[in-house]
């Protein structure tokens, strides 16, 4: 498979414009790493790619591509499979990630883990806080933990509402 060559030059030009747009804008608005955004954008269009394909399409080094796909797998945006009969991995995006933000953000697992970790920190601060309470910085750490615990408790409901509303538009 050689995706970079398969596309007609005029189409390839439009594709590059799309990818560059998302690489720039996603970084500007969300702080996402430009290389991660660019690789992600190629998946929006191509849907399944190897690391070799991505190197050819983007011109980035093997190390940069490997790091970016690993992060996208961790983000639940793409999956990794072995091409049968080879040792090569193929990465796939089954559906555009924003089609289901709940799936994309792995809401339940991620938030459960986050809640547990924050709760542990809060308990530690409550139980062993005694001596620390007078230290500069204690209150800031404590306030952020409390703030995040409140914030994340409202996220699942918010996500459900988004999914429900999106469902009305997306058949």
């Amino acid at each position: 498979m050689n995706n970079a060559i398969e596309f007609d030059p005029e189409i390839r030009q439009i594709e590059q414009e799309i990818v560059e747009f998302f690489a720039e804008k996603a970084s500007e608005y969300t702080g996402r790493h430009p290389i991660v955004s660019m690789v992600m954008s190629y998946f929006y269009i191509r849907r399944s790619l190897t690391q070799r394909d991505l190197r050819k399409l983007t011109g980035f080094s093997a190390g940069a591509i490997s790091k970016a796909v690993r992060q996208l797998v961790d983000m639940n945006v793409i999956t990794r499979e072995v091409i049968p009969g080879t040792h090569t991995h193929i990465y796939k995006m089954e559906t555009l990630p924003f089609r289901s933000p709940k799936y994309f953000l792995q809401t339940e697992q991620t938030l459960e883990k986050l809640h547990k970790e924050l709760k542990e920190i809060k308990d530690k601060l409550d139980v062993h806080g005694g001596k620390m309470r007078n230290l500069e910085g204690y209150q800031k750490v404590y306030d952020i933990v409390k703030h995040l615990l409140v914030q994340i408790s409202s996220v699942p409901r918010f996500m459900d509402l988004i999914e429900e509303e999106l469902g009305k538009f997306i058949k």
Partner: protein
Amino acid sequence: MKSSKKALSEERLKVTERKLVDVIANFGYLKGRSAKTSEVMAYIYIRQEVTQQLLRELTGYSLGTVSAVLQDLEKLGVVNKHSSQNARGYVYRLAGTPSQVMSQSMADFQGYLSEISGFLDEVEAKLSKSSLSKKQGYSQLRRFLDEMNVLIPAYQQVLQKFQTMRLDSRQTRVGAANE
């Protein structure tokens, strides 16, 4: 003796803060940010005011790295740079309270959606040349555009609805407080 107890408490607080930074930074990583940006951002959320030197000590990154990350965060609207009264250089402050910074990102998202929408119209115009429809790669671009043409307006509608809901609940709270 007293000072060693204090040192122990300080160490304990530092370890706790470090743990909190890791938790917040991991969340940033899952949003696609770089590990370095996520870590610096986590410290700024907690401390709310930092200097490049302090971030260098806390993270172990070089001043060049810290400076580049801070520039990105300034562009992102997360921090504001101010001249320091006590030290040389600048202090970087979180651009509002943590809640304000978080709700700002929702407002920004609307701007992002409208930029995407405008850009996709341009792409649509380029792709509409009849000579392209038989070309290799056309169907992949077409599929992407078709999906985005449904998703972007859907998100715009949903966000608008949430903004109205938030406004309504705020007005209700103000009304209740007045009564």
